[in-house]
């Protein structure tokens, strides 16, 4: 039945409108203060051309470590989401506790200045 796919169509339209809208709005409101690093193809501070065996800063490891740890936790959200309606409130509370513990880790990393580049 094509009508069953109405939800998908609406979702598609909303998603497209949101992304285009965000870009258009940003074009109007954002500040333009370009400097040399910002105009580089990769804004991460990495020079895109040169020797492949170049050493890069150890700071990238810290960012990568934080990314890996927080990223992998998302793996638990998928099975949780699949059975969420069957377990109900208990599952919700449990996931909130899980996220709170992750958030504690985030606060710790933030207060220890793990996100400060210099």
């Amino acid at each position, binding site marked *: 039945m094509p009508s069953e796919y109405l939800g998908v169509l609406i979702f598609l339209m909303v998603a497209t409108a949101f992304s285009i809208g965000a870009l258009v709005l940003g074009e109007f409101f954002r500040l333009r203060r370009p400097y040399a690093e910002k105009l580089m193809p990769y804004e991460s501070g990495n020079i895109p051309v040169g020797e492949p065996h170049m050493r890069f800063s*150890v700071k990238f*490891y810290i960012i990568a*470590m*934080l990314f890996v740890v927080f*990223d*992998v936790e998302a*793996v*638990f959200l998928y099975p949780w989401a699949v059975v969420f309606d069957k377990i109900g409130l208990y599952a919700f509370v449990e996931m909130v506790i899980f996220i709170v513990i992750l958030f504690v880790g985030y606060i710790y990393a933030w207060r220890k200045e793990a996100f400060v580049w210099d």
Partner: protein
Amino acid sequence: MVPLHWYLTLSAAVFMIGMFGFLTRRNIIIMFMSVELMLNAVNISLVSFSHYLQDMRGHILVFFVITVAAAEAAIGLAIIISLFRNKQTAHVDEMNEMKG
């Protein structure tokens, strides 16, 4: 359908490659990657058993293994970084502060 023992053979082979790498290589990063290989071999066999037995426990354990492996990698890299700051090497044979 691919029979179970193919997956198990693959898993055993990957596990052996990881174990061999761990025992023969002397660069910490490569030894670390070998351990990851061993863990992934275990994941293959757990998932295939889980599918074969039509039981979810194997999947659950795989999720936990993946998470713990990430935490282990983070801690391992952190220790390697502090090691590297004190001594410019990532070679196990050059770590000989203690003997006996």
